[in-house]
């Protein structure tokens, strides 16, 4: 990252230059490096792997304090990850070895680096790597875990209430099978209520998704996206947060869609139950060096692993290194899962800034999609008439 910034600054200085010269960069092939070190220089890994099997003695990290004497969590943080929410079906252990982890990273990064095939659906998209939006170009904390879920111990979601045995893990496996990275993020970005086309108030299956804007996925409509907590899950890209601590309020800004959580610190009554929100309502307090945040009052419309209005989330933020926050959350919903479950989603230091992600304002995509669907229907109707 540092090397890249230096390169970038020198390029920006050459404002008169129209053509970018490849010789300005050190010639490091990205896919030749483990994805955690995309720049020419290896970036130092986070202090220690999350709960490793063995741990060498290290000088204990002293958590800095804010001006108000609270544990300092401030700054820009990212949670982009290749670690799936649920443990892949063919994996039984809790931790990869460092070698295995590096292989996972390398495979994923080189996959992101690959060109898609012209004439395929996958090719109908801008290239993520050109916009530095592929995960391998974000800082990824060293995380040897085989799943983000740390409880239940099998690393998978608990069974759904009322579901048959074994069906509980299905939803969380995410698109792309057991390796689905950010399955929490992907699923959370999926349309409300389950099936892709299912929409509140109308529409039906996937076939009706482009009948109207209201049938389209919540994220496409720029209402809310997968990175907005609680809990904080990989948004897929731009998964960056800014934490600002005032004297008795903690603000967490989610980059997409400039989503703001303001968490009052201290003793407060529970919010009135009639007030329900997409991101619920939070209360926070400090326990030693840990910020604990309890959230209730969800309106149940933000897709989160099938949960509804009874969802409660408890988050714990602990700064364990200058560049790492140990972030865990426990999700409880007795009407959705047979037991609460807990995940660990480390936050790693990111470069700022968070530029305004004004989404709805310049959201031309859905208008183009709807217009395209109408044009296709009209063409089909005209052809049928002949």
């Amino acid at each position, binding site marked *: 990252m540092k090397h890249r910034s230096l390169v970038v600054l020198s390029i920006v200085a050459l404002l008169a230059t129209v053509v970018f010269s490849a010789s300005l960069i050190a010639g490091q092939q990205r896919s030749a490096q483990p994805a955690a070190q995309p720049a020419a220089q290896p970036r130092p890994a986070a202090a220690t792997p999350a709960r490793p099997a063995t741990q060498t003695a290290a000088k204990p990290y002293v958590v800095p304090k804010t*001006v108000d004497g609270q544990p300092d969590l401030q700054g820009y943080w990212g949670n982009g990850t290749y670690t799936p929410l649920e443990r892949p079906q063919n994996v039984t252990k809790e931790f990869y070895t460092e070698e295995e982890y590096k292989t996972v990273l390398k495979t994923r990064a080189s996959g992101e680096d690959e060109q898609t095939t012209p004439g395929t659906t996958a090719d109908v998209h801008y290239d993520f790597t050109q916009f530095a939006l592929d995960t391998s170009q974000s800082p990824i904390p060293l995380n040897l875990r085989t799943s983000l879920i740390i409880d239940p111990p099998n690393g998978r979601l608990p069974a759904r209430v009322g579901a048959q045995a074994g069906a509980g893990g299905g939803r969380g496996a995410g698109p792309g099978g057991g390796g689905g990275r950010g399955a929490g993020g992907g699923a959370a970005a999926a349309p409300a209520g389950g099936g892709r086309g299912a929409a509140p108030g109308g*529409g039906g299956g996937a076939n009706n998704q482009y009948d*109207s804007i209201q049938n389209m996925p919540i994220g496409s409509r720029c209402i809310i996206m997968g990175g907005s907590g609680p809990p904080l899950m990989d948004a897929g890209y731009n998964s960056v947060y800014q934490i600002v601590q005032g004297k008795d309020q903690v603000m967490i800004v989610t980059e997409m869609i*400039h989503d703001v959580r303001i968490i009052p610190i201290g003793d407060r009554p529970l919010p009135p139950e009639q007030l329900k929100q997409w991101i619920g309502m939070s209360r926070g307090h400090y326990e030693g060096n840990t910020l604990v945040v309890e959230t209730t009052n969800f309106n149940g419309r933000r897709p989160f692993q099938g949960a509804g209005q009874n969802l409660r989330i408890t988050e714990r933020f602990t700064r364990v290194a200058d560049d790492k926050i140990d972030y865990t959350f426990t999700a409880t919903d007795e009407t959705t899962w047979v037991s609460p479950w807990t995940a660990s989603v480390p936050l790693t230091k990111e470069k700022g800034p968070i530029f305004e992600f004004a989404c709805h*304002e310049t959201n031309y995509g859905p208008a183009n999609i709807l217009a395209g669907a109408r044009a296709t229907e009209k063409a089909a109707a005209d052809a049928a008439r002949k």
Partner: protein
Amino acid sequence: MRNRLVGLVVLTAVLATALSAQAPATYRAPRTKDGKPDLNGIWQAINTANWNIEAHSPEPGPMFQLGAAYAVPGGFGIVEGGPIPYKPEALAKRQENYKNRLTQDPEIKCYLPGVPRAMYQPFPFQIVQSPKHIMMSFEFAGALRTIYMADQTPAPADSWMGWSNGKWEGETLVIDTTGFNGMPWFDKAGNYASDTLHIVERITPRSAETLNYEATIEDPAVFTRSWKISFPLYRRIEKNLQLTEFRCVEYSEEIIYGHLRKPGTGPAPTR
């Protein structure tokens, strides 16, 4: 006797001079732990600026069906010293905005309100203050302003809420904002600026529960000179108050996308 009279006159004169020359006592706000005036809290404007920042008479709203409940209240305005100094062609554009406000007001479409409009929309906003960043979070459309107090850079690109660099001058937070995209309006009446808008705000605590807000506005593409607005901001003092979501995208979708709906389908019922 005469000396005493002269002495009394002189004393009166001196006192009168002293009293009139004496500036009103400047309020000194409580300090944050890093020694700055503490602006933390929930604030809100109470005026009709969001209808029209200039002085204006009451008038019907743009939809007769909404009757008196959504008509325009009169107001003294927040613009100092007369009407906004538009260039002639810019004034014509403002009039056109006004005529088409029902379809053109970005607020109706739940677009980010920009600055200064966010500061006087009829919604509370919250300031969360830290040494390096002063954040302003607005209920309307979840708008956010980041005031960079350190590591300051120019605007990397244009945005709805602009790019703000701030500094303290004694009791006053001075905010310099550029990088606007020219899309927001100043009010429902169609007052506007372009992407060369430059705003300098001065926010000064005037009492435990009020702030003085003033802004100098300049845009050489639209106005013949710079001009000022000013109004108080009031602290929302209710116990345990929090901002609530106003995710208004859904309220604007039928307006924006309704014409692209599949023929034969009706608008989805509101939830």
